């Protein structure tokens, strides 16, 4: 891309932003930032993505990871960006960061076999204690929260419409009895699943260790060691205090770790 085109794009972005700012909308500010960012980047997201992939193929994993993260910071992250970021971190030996990226990709596309395979592979490389969610939550992870929402809402609609039809045509009640029971039970189950998915989505985040660390018994420096964790270990955050997080892997292991030693990932 020539410098002239780049300059035109910047001027266009700034002018557009100023016009929108005249209207006094905060969205204008956001759009201005995005336009400006896009201009500074000088590439479309697809081009930037391809450039990052090129770095990856050249075994410049750290640079590739930085390029993928740049895309994510500019809100141009896609499933493929998070997935490739995980690969780049994994190849550069950053197991914890790789797991965090794979988790984000899995959150967006939970049934992608590539993501699941790489996440599982990365988790298997991690040593030492780690938090493993129970099988129910692992099963719930097969669908996104929105998919669970649509399923539950669809079942609710179907069930209510069948009941409505019976109200209008009581004679149909006998014919629809089986469907009524089926849709009611299905709705209850799907709503239960949606409730669990919501509970999981809004539960405490997961702390992913990015370097080997020592979990301490208290939130102060020099506190006795509770247990050691290694790069890639996933810990459930139970509480927080200042710069410390109270984390656990299971009922037996509980301790404090400094916030700068972990990456916080939302629960999937």
């Amino acid at each position, binding site marked *: 891309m020539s410098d002239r085109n780049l300059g035109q794009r910047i001027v266009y972005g700034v002018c557009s932003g100023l016009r929108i700012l005249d209207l006094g909308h905060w969205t204008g500010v956001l759009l201005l930032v995005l336009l400006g960012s896009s201009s500074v980047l000088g590439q479309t997201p697809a081009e930037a993505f391809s450039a990052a*992939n090129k770095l990856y193929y050249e075994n410049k994993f750290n640079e590739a990871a930085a390029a993928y993260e740049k895309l994510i910071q500019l809100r*141009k992250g896609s499933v493929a960006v998070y997935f490739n970021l995980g690969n780049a971190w994994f190849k550069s030996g950053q197991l914890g960061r790789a797991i965090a990226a794979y988790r984000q990709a899995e959150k967006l596309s939970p049934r992608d076999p590539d993501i*699941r395979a790489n996440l599982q592979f990365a988790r298997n490389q991690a040593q030492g204690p780690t938090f493993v969610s129970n099988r129910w939550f692992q099963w719930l992870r097969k669908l996104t929260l929105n998919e669970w929402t649509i399923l539950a809402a669809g079942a609710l609609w179907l069930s209510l*419409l069948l009941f409505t039809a019976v109200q209008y045509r009581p004679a149909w009640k006998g014919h629809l009895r089986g469907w009524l029971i089926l849709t009611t039970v299905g709705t209850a189950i799907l709503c239960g699943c949606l409730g669990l998915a919501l509970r999981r989505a809004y539960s405490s985040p997961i702390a992913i260790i990015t370097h080997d660390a020592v979990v301490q018994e208290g939130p102060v420096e020099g506190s006795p060691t509770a247990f050691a964790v290694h790069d890639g270990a996933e810990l459930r955050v139970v509480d927080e205090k200042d710069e410390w997080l109270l984390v656990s892997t299971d009922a037996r292991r509980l301790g404090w770790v400094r916030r700068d030693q972990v990456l916080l990932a939302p629960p999937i």
Partner: protein
Amino acid sequence: MLRRAVLSARLIHRDGVFTALAFAILIFSPSVFAATLTASVDRDTITLGEQVTLSLTFSGATPQTIPAPNVEGLQIDYVGQSSHVNIVQNQISSSVSHNFNVTPRRAGDFVIPAITADVGGEKLTTQPIKLKVLKAAAPSAEAINSGSQLAVLKLALPKKEIYVGEIIPMELDLYLHSSVRNISGFQITSFPADGCSLGKMVQRDQRRAQLGNTVYTVIPLSYTLRPLRAGTLNLGPITVSVVVEIPSARRRRDPFFEQFGMRDPFEMLGGEQKQLTLATEVETLRSLALSQENVPPSFNGAVGSFTLNVSVGPTNVAVGDPITVRIQLSGQGPFDTLALPEQPGWHDFKTYPPTTKVDTTGDPLGIRGSKTFEQVVVPQNAEIKELPPVSFSFFDPEGKSYRTLSGQAMKLVVRPSGVAPAPTVAAANRGQPEELPPPTQDIVPIKTRWGTLAQGGAVLVHQPWFLALQSVPVLALLSGVVLRKRAENLANNPRRRRQRQVAQVIHDGLQELSRLASENKSDDFFATLFRLLQEQLGERLDSPASSITEAVIDEHLKPKGVSETLLSQVQELFQTCNLARYAPIKSSQELAALIPRLETTLRALQSLELHNHQLR
């Protein structure tokens, strides 16, 4: 002044006269009586381990400060004061005693020197007091075998020759004669163990043992003993103080029970307590120094008997990645002080202080079990191929020699930092579901298509439009329920149902009338008109339509107060119908003109609904 005080005290309360009197004496006595100070002990000869009470008694005076005597070899502790009032032949005297517990530290003759106290500017001095402290001694073997001892204290050591740093269990056994019912106030008053350290005490289960011809109940107390220096070490005499309860010697036994060879059951009711001071024999231990020859480099003072177990993970790491080495030492020894020695072979690794965990479950004394060290080591270069074996040395007292335990060298794959890990078979599954893809040899390659933008934060359950949309089926259901309820109500209300049917009939009938009028079908027109009147009146009067004639005007409508205007309108319509039978109206206009009149009349009849009660 005293008399006035006494009188005042009597006036305060008659029953409390002596209290008031004593109070007055205590207040005013210093100015009345001459002050004296005496010192006394409750016993002048005791056994080492026992205590005596030293009392400094001030009569007729209150000291400004309480002097504390200081005697080498005696520990003297102030315990409090007590007051006394004596009235002898109208002579009243008061005294205050300040008491001290005197605990001898050694046997011998002691003199508590004269004690001087300042009382109101006057110096009062006591006489010196002699105290004889005898050595506590275990009873002789003859005395024990005779069965005359109520309690005996014995010290049991598993061996007499131990090494410095070796930890052994020892047992202090309290033997109680069968006549002892109960004990209380058990207190170890002296536990001389110079050159040794004692561990925690554990009380074990009681047992029975025979000394001479007498069976004793044994209460064993276990300790751990660890010599700190080499040489001959004396342990004991350990002295304890205990109060035993035995049957009273003054109570005569009932011969009634004796003649049947039974114990007097009432013997339990009476008993006396006796304080005993018990002592063990002095046990001599030979503490051996550890050999100075062939001391292994990794020896750091551990004495005991141990086994070593080492595990390492992960074994495929990059430079700078942590490796956890778990070292478990199991066996017998001082686990609390057991430390992991420096590992000189680990110079290529950065090491961190290990975490430790002691597990002595099953051994209350805590000398048998295991101690696990979790040591994090970090490889510093990619040339490392293995973790050198862990080495741990200790002195084995049984073998009387040093022993060195070594684990195996652990193969490692250390790759340069920033390089992709070598493909490995996935490690042990950590509880993931079975349906997950099978373990792979490497990660799946990157994706080449950017795909769609991730829509972060667009959660449907947070969207107002989505939540509002969910109200649609609910509203549909509610409307269906309302309609069904209305239909059911109609079905269950014949009057209402007929009202609706008649309304429909009237509606259709009026259209029919218009058609008949236009077609000039006079007979059919009036037949229909008459039928409509019948239907409406029948519905209003809750009577069959066929039974309605002009006569209902007089029979039913008039009695119910229907307006004359309406009655006349109805009557006119009836009469018109009757006339039409004999003189048919031929004109369509004439027929059509009747329709509005009929409609007006029918509406008026329908409006009678509000006065329904009038029609019944």
